[in-house]
Every structure is written in C-alpha cells, then in structure tokens.
C-alpha cells in the first residue's frame, strides 16, 4: 500500500518517513480553543490514542527577568501581575513579601490579615476558573457561566481596594496603599454569605455527576513519586497525595494564626485534582472568615493600621507631598526608584494558585535587582504533560491540559 502511494506521489516532497508512518501528527495549538492559552502540543496520534506528545512553549515570552534587572522594586510589581493573571494579587504580594524579607520589614498583624483575605480571595478565583473550565471541557458550560458572577464579585473587591481588576498591582512594600473601604468590607461580607451556597451548588453539579466522573477519573494520573520528581507543587501535587503547602511549611503573612486543612487526593488524576481544588476553595473560605473576624477585633489605633513603617519604600501621604518638602523628596525618590537596596540574596516562596511561586532575588546593592528569577510552578510541571497523556485518548488529554491549570503567562514569563 505505502509503495503504491510512494509511486503515485513521487513528485511531492514530504518529510522523511512520513509515508510509511502508521500514526498521524496533529498540532494541538498554539491557538486552539481547547488549550485555553497559547501553547502548542505536537501529538502523534494513532486513531484517537496519543502515542507521544511534544510541547512547545514560549509564544508569549516577555523577558520579565531581563526587564527586572533594570527596574526598581515597585516597577517590578506590574510584571508579576502578568505571570499567573488568574490570581495576580498572590503574585504581587509574593513579590512584596520578598522585598520585605530583603529589607527586613516587619508588617503589623492587621496588614497580614488583610493580605490573607486578598490572597485567599484570589486563590478562590483561580481555582474557580480552573475547575469550571474542566467542566466546560467535559461538556458542562452552565457551571462556568454561573460561577463567573462570583469571580466578578471578587474582582469588584479588588477594584474597591486598588482600582483595577485583572492585573491588580495591589499593595505596597509594607502593606496596602490605602485602608479597605467600608464598601470593600461589605462586599467581602456579601461574598462570605452568598458564595458558600453557590459553591455547594457548583459542587453538586460535578462531584457525583456520572458523566463528569467517568470523563475525569483515571485520566491524567500521576504517582506521588513521579510528581515530586517532576517538581509538581500546589493542588496538582496534593492531588497525588503529598500534603505540601507553603502556607503551612513556611508560613508567611501570619498564616500560622489560621486554622485550615490541606486537602489531599490519592491518584493524582483529573478527578482528584478537581476535588482538591474544590476543597481548597472551602478551606480558603474558612481562612477568609477567620481573618475577617480577627480584623473586626482590632481596637483603637490598631484598627486603622494598613501599612508598616517603611519611609524609604512606602509612599508618603498625598497631602504631605503637596505641603511638605521632605515628603515631596521621598515621593520622587520612591517613584524614580532612587533608593539603593541592601546587598543580599533572598529566596521567598508563596503558595500561588498553581503551587510554589518562588522569587529568587540577588541584590548587589544597586537600585534594581542584579538578578531576579521567578520559580513559575506551571512551567515546571508542564514538562510532565507528555508522560501524563501517553496512551490516553485525545479528548482526555484536553481535560488533563485544563485540569493542570496551565497559565501561559506564568509559563512563559
């Protein structure tokens, strides 16, 4: 058969070995609706079964690490927004926490709790997107549209605090740019009241849904040992049964004051990943509730604190800038980034939406980092994709792709 084709098509120049080949090469991506992002998978498929997969990344590489080498600390915060844009506040705060570690800043408890609220809200919005997208890929569009209004509410809370929604650039070194407004607290309260009902409904829609279970169980699984070797962190590692969570092993921003559980799975497959993310949303709600209550308990002076005392990095009040010489000078020095950092080498990690988001900062005493490296969890665990999908059906590979929660922005930096 193949000889016949060869004779007939001898004038067509084909890549070597492509005629006798029994499998089909299929490009999934770079812009395919099912990849939810810009990355390419070159699949070798035999019918509908995947023989091998090769990933190509880097389509939206924006050279953040290079840019950061010429930017003062505050000008790097907007870069971190654009890593995992589904949970930008976590990235912002991770970066500010790294700076605080380098500068030796200690933040007041109220600031920590406010930060925890924002970080957990963004974790919820991150997981919400991921889990509902898994739903979309298995054929349930309703859940996705339904929960969007609660992501909208979360974005409104961000808006109330920092003025923007997706790429938030939230907070400052030492705390927040302003105290949370009453509206922000009201919206948080509304979220705490309404969201559990919706999450329960969302959970009911999927958790014991026969179609959903059959589509996700046993696909895209990975053992704990392989997951660790592949550098998995976050929900994907926990789904494989390893209870590693940066919030517990290396608490930052006073996470040690809160009571919460780390949900773990057993098989590391798509269903377990979904369950872990779902449980984490419940735990995040618990944390937000506790933090909210703790904030209400502050009395007097303490109840109005929203930033630490870091005159060299925290912008002075606007009315002072307009009326006082000293404040005006500091304002310009901070905006222009004219303050030298201490020399040092810091690694700081936070639990991002996808896992351990690390910032490795080398400072040589200049105004910009000498070297800044982002440990992007997505980039590291996406390597395992070809192993996860080997021998799987093409339609399962799509679900695996979305349940890993790959964010192209984070992957390509």
């Amino acid at each position, binding site marked *: 058969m193949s000889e016949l084709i060869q004779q007939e098509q001898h004038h067509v120049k084909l890549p070597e070995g492509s005629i006798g080949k029994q499998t089909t090469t299929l490009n999934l991506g770079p812009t395919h609706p099912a990849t939810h992002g810009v990355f390419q998978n070159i699949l070798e498929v035999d019918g509908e079964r995947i023989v091998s997969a090769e990933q190509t990344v*880097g389509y939206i*590489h924006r050279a953040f690490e*290079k840019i950061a080498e*010429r930017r003062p600390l505050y000008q790097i915060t907007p870069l971190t927004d654009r890593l995992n844009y589904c949970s930008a506040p976590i990235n912002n705060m991770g970066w500010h926490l790294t700076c605080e570690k380098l500068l030796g800043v200690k933040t007041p408890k109220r600031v920590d709790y406010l930060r925890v609220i924002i970080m957990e809200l963004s974790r919820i919005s991150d997981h919400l997107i991921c889990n509902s997208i898994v739903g979309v890929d298995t054929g349930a569009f309703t859940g996705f549209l339904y929960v969007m209004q609660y992501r909208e509410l979360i974005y409104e809370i961000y808006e109330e605090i920092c003025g923007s929604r997706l790429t938030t650039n939230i907070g400052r070194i030492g705390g927040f740019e302003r105290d949370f407004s009453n509206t922000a607290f009201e919206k948080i309260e509304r979220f705490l009241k309404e969201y559990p009902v919706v999450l329960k409904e969302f959970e009911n829609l999927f958790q014991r849904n026969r179609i959903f279970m059959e589509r996700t169980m046993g696909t895209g699984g990975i053992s704990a040992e392989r997951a660790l070797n*592949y550098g998995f962190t976050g929900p994907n590692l926990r789904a494989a049964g390893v209870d590693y969570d940066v919030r517990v092993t290396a608490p930052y921003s006073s996470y040690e004051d809160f009571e919460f559980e780390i949900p773990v799975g057993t098989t590391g497959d798509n269903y377990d990943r979904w369950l872990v993310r779902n449980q984490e949303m419940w735990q995040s709600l618990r944390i937000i509730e506790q933090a909210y209550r703790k904030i209400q308990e502050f009395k007097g002076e303490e109840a109005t604190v929203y930033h630490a005392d870091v005159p060299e990095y925290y912008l002075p009040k606007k009315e002072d800038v307009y009326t006082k010489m000293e404040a005006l000078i500091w304002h310009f020095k901070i905006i222009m980034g004219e303050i030298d950092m201490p020399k040092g*080498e810091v690694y700081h990690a936070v639990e991002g939406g996808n896992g351990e988001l690390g910032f490795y900062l080398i400072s040589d005493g200049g*105004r910009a980092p000498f070297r800044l490296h982002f*440990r992007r969890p997505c980039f590291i665990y996406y*390597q395992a994709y070809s192993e996860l999908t080997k021998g799987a059906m093409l339609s399962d590979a799509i679900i695996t792709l979305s349940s890993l929660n790959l964010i192209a922005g984070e992957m390509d930096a």
Partner: protein
Amino acid sequence: MVLTNEFITQKLTEKFGEAITNIEEPYGLLTFEVPKEMNLKVMQFLHDDPDLQFRFLTDLCGVHYPDQTGRELGVVYHLHNMPENVRVRLKVFTNIQQPDVFTATKLYESANWQERETYDFYGINFVGHPNLKRILNVDEMDYFPLRKEYPLEDQTRIDKDDEMFGRGGSI
C-alpha cells in the same frame, strides 16, 4: 533529629572536605559552592544520604557575573528536603568560554526544562542533557539574552540619562 544548617555543613565537609566553599547563610538559607565537575556528586549525596534526603529540586537558574574572570557564569540550585522542611542552595560556577556543567536530569526530571531555560538565556551547556535546545526564545536566536553584555534599553538613546536609573549605561 533536627536537620540544622551546621549539621548539613558538617556532613558535607566530612564527605567532600575542601571542595565545599563559600559557605554562607543569607537570610537563614544555607548556601555553598562546589566545583563544577562535582555538582552531580554533591547533589547525589544530598539526595541519597539517609540523614539529608534533599529529594526535591525547587529551582534551577543561571546567573552572570561579568567581573568574575574565569567563573563568570553560575548555576544556582535550590534543593528542598520536604519532610524536614529544610532548603539548601547550591552553586556552581563556570567560565564563559566553555560553559560546561553536568546535567541534573538523571536525578530530577524537573531539571529538564529548567536547564533548557538556563541554556536559552545564559548559554550554559548542560553535558548529558537529553534535549538541550532553546525553550522560550526562538530557535534562530544566536545569542544568550540574559547575559549582562546585552543592555536592556537602546544605548544610542540620548534623551535618557541612564545614570539616573540604577547602575550606569554599560550594563
């Protein structure tokens, strides 16, 4: 038994003696340097020793110090012992003319792409890597962009005094 930095240092110097240099503890994280031909041996020891068990490669990245003649390029490994919750930072340095460093892919699967990224940006040649090619940049690129000799902004611009932004115009 608590895995302290002193204990790890003692274990390492017992095994490798003089080869472990520049031992520091910036912000509590044990940092040390090993000769580049020994990086795998040390990592294997850290991985296998029953007391140490650094089984998780958190991060791998390159650094370029143009002023350190003969050891301009560095590779920094962050290793993690998850059960004891201890991290160490291991560094190797190599010259820029022949930047060969042994690959850690045999030990950690996660090193694969991280080494490709380091190669992509710094040109460090990981000896024994199964698929060492560019990952984030285009394949046709013929330079290593994160090296310090490539300035970020157009140096011919005269409307901006670069002295006002960090460290001078040349870097």
